[in-house]
């Protein structure tokens, strides 16, 4: 079981419960009452803990190795998913998984940022950090969706766009910019869901959408807390403080009016029950895709423009 620092007490209690259960079986004892009491206690501890998570706790959950990745959701939510590859200019970026699928009988395009589950996979997926060819693959697939009137669903989970030499040479800035521009006028509904980390421009390049949702324990930020602390506090070890100051949680963003919906996670985090999490995302998509598809495209585009147009606080 994945354990985060704030889960220490709960982990100990869970171990005790498991011990008791094993004891009951070995010694043929009836410990049902005691076990149930402890389970209720654990449930209440979890509820309390997960109501009072700090920004840094959320960052930790979002970055958990055990956290479900895009493919975990794609395989549970969509049918007949066929992955498509390449940007048609340079290469195929494994940090982006994209393709076509069926969603309750409706053809859709799904494009996702994909992290790895272990070191080997992470190297293949570049830790979910796309290169320009990843953003260009995204654009190609979105334009294809537009041609065939398929709604686009983007899953966001990245520490940020990759900062390598090759990425810079191949125009990482241009690739992100082009996506921002093209998504804003794409003539088909777009829903973007942050399922883990929403890392800055690298995330935004796939999140200029009609609706932007975040799972309950995700973060979406201009920079990593470590980077922020390093630049503004001159001390990267102040990341915890930075995370709180930056206001990067789903709750912060919905209060700011920047995102449209938060999808609650199972108690303990999405990783404790992927099936349930996927089901919740699916229910939300069912309602929204139907609604967005029925709206005339001109009206959709106007709303999409103003969704981003209105973001900003100035004094005149």
């Amino acid at each position, binding site marked *: 079981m994945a354990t985060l620092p704030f889960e220490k007490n709960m982990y100990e209690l869970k171990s005790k419960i498991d011990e008791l259960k094993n004891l009951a079986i070995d010694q043929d004892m009836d410990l049902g009452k005691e076990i149930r009491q402890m389970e209720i206690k654990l449930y209440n501890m979890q509820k309390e803990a997960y109501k009072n998570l700090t920004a840094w706790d959320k960052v930790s959950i979002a970055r958990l190795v055990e956290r479900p990745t895009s493919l975990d959701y794609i395989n549970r939510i969509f049918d007949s998913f066929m992955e498509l590859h390449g940007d048609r200019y340079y290469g195929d970026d494994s940090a982006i998984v994209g393709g076509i699928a069926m969603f309750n009988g409706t053809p859709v395009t799904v494009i996702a940022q994909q992290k790895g589950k272990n070191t080997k996979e992470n190297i293949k997926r570049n830790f979910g950090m796309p290169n320009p060819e990843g953003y260009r693959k995204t654009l190609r697939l979105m334009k294809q969706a537009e041609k065939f009137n398929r709604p686009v669903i983007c899953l966001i989970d990245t520490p940020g*766009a*990759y*900062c*390598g*030499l090759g*990425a*810079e*040479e*191949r*125009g*990482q*800035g*241009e690739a*992100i*910019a*082009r996506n*921002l*521009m*093209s998504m*804003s*006028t794409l003539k088909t509904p777009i829903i973007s869901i942050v399922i883990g980390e929403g890392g*800055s*421009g690298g995330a*935004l*390049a796939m999140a*200029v959408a009609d609706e932007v949702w975040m799972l309950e324990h995700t973060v*979406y*930020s*201009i*920079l990593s807390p470590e980077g*922020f602390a390093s*630049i*503004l506090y001159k001390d990267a070890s102040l990341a915890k403080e930075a995370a709180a*100051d*930056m*206001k*990067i949680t789903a709750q*912060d*963003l919905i209060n*700011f009016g*920047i995102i449209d919906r938060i999808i609650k996670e199972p108690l303990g985090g999405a990783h404790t029950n992927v099936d349930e999490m996927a089901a919740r995302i699916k229910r939300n998509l069912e309602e929204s895709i139907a609604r967005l598809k029925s709206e005339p495209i001109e009206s959709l585009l106007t709303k*999409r*423009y103003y969704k*981003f*147009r209105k*973001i*900003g*606080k*100035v*004094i*005149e």
Partner: protein
Amino acid sequence: MAFILSVINCSVGMFLERGNHMFEFKRIFQKSKYIEVKSVGNDGEKKPNIPSGMWVKCETCGKILYNKDLEESIMTCDNCRTHFRIGCHERINYTIDKGTFIEYDEFMISDNPIDFEGYTDKLQNLRDKTLLNEAVITGEGKINGQDTIIVVMDSTFMMGSMGCVVGEKITRAIEKATDNRKPIIIFTASGGARMQEGIFSLMQMAKTSAAIARHNEKGNLYITVLTDPTTGGVTASFAMLGDIILAEPNALIGFAGKRVIEQTIKQQLPEGFQRAEFLLEKGFIDKVVDRKDMKDTLTQILKIHS
């Protein structure tokens, strides 16, 4: 190596014509400062070179440059072509026909959207020190008689970082250009998105890019001029979306910071990396243009698109 020159001289005719004269009033009574010469390289550790007269030394090639020559060469070293950074007012003076500039949104200032400690005070101090209200000036004017909307960023105000005000002013300028079927020219100079405004700064990237998208759809012209430095969230949004992208010689233009890239790849970077000439070679900009030729180049482009 960029060489920052701050020349704040209240007496010589560097005034802009403005609708409101409060700004000029303030400038007249501001104390005359000596020429401050700071030199920065990529390591940022060069010591300042403070002259006591009317000359400065170009850190790149060592040539002595006299004040008068500097003005005539529009703040460039005529020996090695180094283009020193200039402020937005100077830029507008060099680019826009005298007497034709009308500024937009000149009194817009920043709020504190994520309640970041110390941000409001920092802004006030900067406004007092730089006599700018923010890191960008927008407006309209003529270039050799041709109408254009113009946006000029200024790296002396919080490193030209883009927060809500920069995003809003630029978006309004783009929308004005779209609505009036006018071309827009944006001179970029920025260290990227403004950290102190958090996620709000990030969203300005989407906001400005969406405005450009609409401007494009109506068949209007957008010229970007990339100046030193242009980095981060500005590069990854409107800066790289011009129909025509020009750049000043040797300007630093990139997405990620050099140090971050070096830490990521654990190698030294090639010579000239992220400089204008490098981007030209890699196919990302249209032309590198000397400052003394910029106005003519813009004139020519506007003419072809009129």
